[in-house]
C-alpha cells in the first residue's frame, strides 16, 4: 500500500514538474528513514511537538528563504497566522521545554542542514529540489 502511494506520489510530482505548477514539498535527506508523514504529524512537527521516527526525534527546519514559501507554510502546514504560530511555539517552550523549528533564511543552508542531519525535515519549492539526488521529496504540501 505504502509502495503504491509513493509511486503515485512520484507520478504526481513528475506531473507537477512537467505541468509547470508551483508546489511546496516536504523534504529530507535522500537516505532519511522518514517515509511518509500525514498532515497532522507534519503540523505537530513544525509546532515543536516531539515526533519520533525509528527511535529518534525528527528535527524540523523552517525554510524562510522565500516570503511566499513561508506564507504557504503558515497557511497550509500550521494553518495559523504568524503571531498565533509564535505564541504556540512560546507556549510549547514554556510548558514542555520544546525545541522550536530552526529558522533558516537561506535555501543553501536548508539543504546543508538536511544533508548533515538524517533526522532533519524541511520544506521547499519543488523546482528547487526536484533534481537534487541528495534530497528526497516526502510529500506534496501544497500545489497551485
Amino acid at each position, binding site marked *: 500500500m505504502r509502495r503504491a502511494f509513493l509511486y503515485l506520489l512520484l507520478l504526481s510530482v513528475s506531473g507537477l514538474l512537467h505541468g509547470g505548477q508551483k508546489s511546496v514539498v516536504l523534504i529530507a535527506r535522500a537516505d532519511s528513514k522518514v517515509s511518509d508523514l500525514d498532515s497532522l504529524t507534519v503540523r505537530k512537527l513544525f509546532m515543536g511537538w516531539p515526533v519520533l521516527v525509528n527511535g529518534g526525534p525528527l528535527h524540523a527546519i523552517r525554510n524562510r528563504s522565500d516570503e511566499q514559501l513561508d506564507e504557504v507554510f503558515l497557511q497550509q502546514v500550521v494553518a495559523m497566522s504568524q503571531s498565533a504560530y509564535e505564541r504556540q511555539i512560546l507556549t510549547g517552550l514554556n510548558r*514542555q521545554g520544546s525545541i522550536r523549528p530552526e529558522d533558516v533564511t537561506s535555501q543553501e543552508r536548508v539543504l546543508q542542514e538536511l544533508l548533515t542531519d538524517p533526522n532533519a525535515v524541511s520544506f521547499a519549492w519543488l523546482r528547487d529540489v526536484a533534481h537534487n539526488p541528495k534530497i528526497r521529496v516526502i510529500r506534496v504540501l501544497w500545489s497551485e
Partner: protein
Amino acid sequence: MRTAYTLLLLALVTAPLARGDPLQAEFLLLPSAQAAGTFDREAPVTQVQDELLQADMLLTLQKGRFKFFAEYLVSDHESDLERLQLGWQLTNDTIIWVGRYHQPSSVWNHDHHHGQYLQTSVTRPDIDEWEDLGGILPQHFTGMLIESGHPAFGSWRLRTAIAGGIAPQLQADGLEPFDLLHPNFDRHTMGYQARASLHPSDFSESGFGLLVADDQLPWAGEPQTPAQVGLDHVDLRLIGAFGTYAGEKWNLQATLYHADARLHYTTSLVNDDFDVWYLQAERRLPHKLTAFGRWEDSFGTGDSQYLKLFTEFARIRYTAGLRWDFVSRQALTLQFENTHTLNGSFDAVRLQWSAAFF
C-alpha cells in the same frame, strides 16, 4: 552525602548526552517589570506581589530522546532554580521527567509557569500562588513527572500527568520547597499529584478535567503563631475540576479545588477542609487588546486551621484589566484588584510590561 548527590545529578545529566544524536538547544527569556500600588487598605497584610522586576530564563538541551530543561528566575525578590528536569521522550505522546518540577494539579501554573508574558493577567489566582510569595499549596516538588497524551472518543484527546516527589516543608513563614542547589535533607516527605483532561483535538486548548493531590507536608520550623505550636505535619489532599474554553474571541478558564487538610499535632489531630474556585474570562478585542476579568472565591476558609499556618490568604478577589500586545512579543497590562483577605480588604492597581525573547 552532598558529594554523592552531586555526582548522581551530574551522571544523570551527562549520561544520555554521550549518545551520537545531534544536540539541539533552545533559550527563552521572559522579562517583566511592574508598578503596583495599593489603596483603601483595611488589612494588616496587603498581598502585593513583590517581584516587580523579574527575568525568567528557560533553557532546553535536547539530544535524541533525552531532554534537559531548566527554568531559572531572577527578580528583585529572589533568584532561584525553579525547574530542573531531565526528560526521556518515551513515545511521541509520553515524556518522563525527573528533577524539580511544578506539580501538575495546578492547571494555572502548569500552563503558565513563572513567565509573565504568557499569562494574560498580571497576577495568578491566590490559590495557585508560589510558595515564596505566600502560596498555601505546595507547587515545587522534586521527583518524577510523567506527561502523556492519548486518543480518546474518536478525535478527542486525553492528556494526563502524574507525579510524585519530595514535598515542600512547612515553616513559620510558609512553605519551603526542596532546593536542588542548596539541598536540605532534613525531614522531607512525599507528595503525589495527578491531572487528567479531555480535549476536542490535539491542538485544542479547550478542555476539561480532574485533578487530585495527596501531599504530606512536614513541619520544619520554629512556631511563631498559635496554630504552628506543636505541629508535626499536615496531610493535604486536594481534589478538583477544571475547564477551559479557548475560542476565537473568548477564553474562559475555571478551576475548583476542594482541600482536605489533616493537621497532626503532637497531642491532637485537627481536620480541616475548604473550597476555593476561580473563573477567568478573557475577551480578545480589536487593536490587539484583550480585556480580562477574574473572580476568585472560597468556602470554609474563614475558620480554616490550615490557613492559619500562613500569613494571609485572599478568600475573595475580583480582578479586571486590559492587556495590549503593542508589538510582537511585548505587552502592556493594566490591572485592578479588590481583595478580601482573612483579616481585611484592600485594592490594588498594577501596570506591567512583559515580553518574550528567543
